[in-house]
């Protein structure tokens, strides 16, 4: 994926998931201040990015990301590392398990 393609995909995720306007998602835009996202939104974004990167993101590295441009660079670096095996990636978190009461 080229950098432009990554930016386009990130823009798509942000617009679809958080009802942002496409022109708000500029490389300089800060995720938490200007785009008004919060820590739960960030988890959501990184879960969706697994589909592009094929990797489970390192939480420490993910926390360092502050702008859209940094997010693009983060995805680039992840892709460059190569995909993880399904075992290494683990399953994407299922939010239904947070509230399910049935053990069966």
């Amino acid at each position, binding site marked *: 994926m080229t950098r432009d393609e990554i930016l386009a995909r990130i823009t798509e995720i942000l617009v679809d998931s958080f009802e942002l306007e496409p022109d708000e998602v500029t490389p300089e835009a800060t995720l938490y201040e200007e785009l008004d996202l919060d820590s739960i939104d960030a988890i959501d974004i990184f879960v969706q990015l697994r589909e592009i990167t094929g990797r489970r993101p390192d939480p420490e590295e993910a926390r360092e990301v502050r702008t859209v441009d940094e997010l693009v660079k983060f995805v680039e670096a992840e892709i460059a590392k190569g995909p993880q095996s399904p075992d290494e990636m683990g399953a994407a978190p299922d*939010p239904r398990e947070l509230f399910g009461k049935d053990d069966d």
Partner: protein
Amino acid sequence: MVPLRARCGARARVVGRRWPADVGRSNFATVIRVDVAILGGGLAGNLLARQLRREVPDASVLVVEKSKERRWKVGESTVEIAAHYLLSKQGLSTYLYDRHLPKNGLRFFFDTEARDAALTAMSEVGTDRPPPTPSFQLDRARFEADLLEMNAADGVDVRIGAAATKLDLEARTFEVDGQTVHARWIVDGTGRASLLARERDLRLAIDDHRMAAVWGRFTGVKDFDQIDDHAWRARSRFVARNLSTNHFCYPGYWIWFIPLGNGVTSLGLVGDKDVFRRGIRTNEGFLSFLREHGAVASMIGGAEPLDLEGYTQLAYATKRFFHGGERWALLGDAAAFTDPFYSPGSDFIALECDYTTDLVRRDLAGEDVADRARTYDAFMQFRFDATMLLYKDLYPCFGSYDLMRVKLNFDLGCYYNLWLDPIVRGQHLDEGFLFKQLTRGPETMEALTWFGDLFRRTTAHLRRRGAYHQHNLGQYNLGVDCLRGWLDEVGTARKRRQIQRRTEEVFNYGRRECLALLGEDDGKTLRLDQFAAAS
């Protein structure tokens, strides 16, 4: 009793198409095959049957109701989600306004420590105009009888006076009147005694919310709007207080007044089990307890009991509401119950009927609904858990106007912004939306827990200062502190950010008002993520 095939010939072909050839071959004359069998012809079961007839008209529906008589039942007061459902999904607007009472919101009164305040002296929270969002006071006996009649006339196979036995969920069969019913879906709306919950061992006890209740129907209860005090009547301006669900609030318990029409009023007591002394579950014992409260006594001088009922433990949970793989669902009290303070029972029924109808529709169209049922189930569990947080360990603050003014406004703001809004918009049937809600669920639960702690700390503070009852006389609040300015937005196509800003406003209201009572007001306005951090 007319067999299903004779009454619904057109749909018998549909049934035949959906069943494997070997099912019910042996004794065809005594086998009923149906797409959806609903156990229980009460409110929940009848509403589901009606919704299925309206939205999945090809589905054959059987309702089995044990009791031949429709009697009064608790759960008369509906709130906004249920009312919206009854109007938008059930098409019952004319019927409800014709046969039941429109409700003028929830209303709350506060008393002195000695419980001797006159009604007109009590502090009050409640609107002074008819609410912009409709709700109803249901005469459950009439409603259920009418729904049964409407459903039977609409092609539902209604079996009255028949009990379901020998439930076999693997085979999806049960027996009724010596006939075997094979149902593609089995839905249980039989209330607390739920056959299906017992069969699947679904019931979960809730040991940390020990609330009990006793209630009955009475004639001769005084009308709130006939109280001989012009200034007091003028205070509520355009609204008839008598049509509200009126709560008299005390530390650890509350008393309800709900009008049912035809001169009948439902009176009830809900509270910690310690309040329920010996003899209180008799007509005289109940009335005697009520008469210990001056304002309540002034309303029931001429009250004559018609019936009396009670539960010793109100709240319980369920391991599951729906199972898409095994094709069963629980409705209403057959599933779970939280607490009646904000009348949430019919809200739960509305959601359960909506979800079950959607699962049946998809299943009959050939979709595997096991995964979707899990999502709906998780959302119901989230709704249940979040609702419990409104009440758990919070009854001690119920008797203080200062505390409850804040809690009532705060809870109403959250209800309109976070629950009513998406349901009016139909988002509760969108899996993507539900996943997002569930992902944010722990944050919501943490924030509600944080506010619960704040209310408890504020209660303890007012108690220590001897200020718990300080403003229980003479105050009046409309109960819309958190809704002013944005009620018109509710149910419209709001942006996510707009919803978050409103949540932030409601949270800041709750925090600011509690800190003011604590004498800790810091003048700060927090961002939403700071509440998450604080909790």
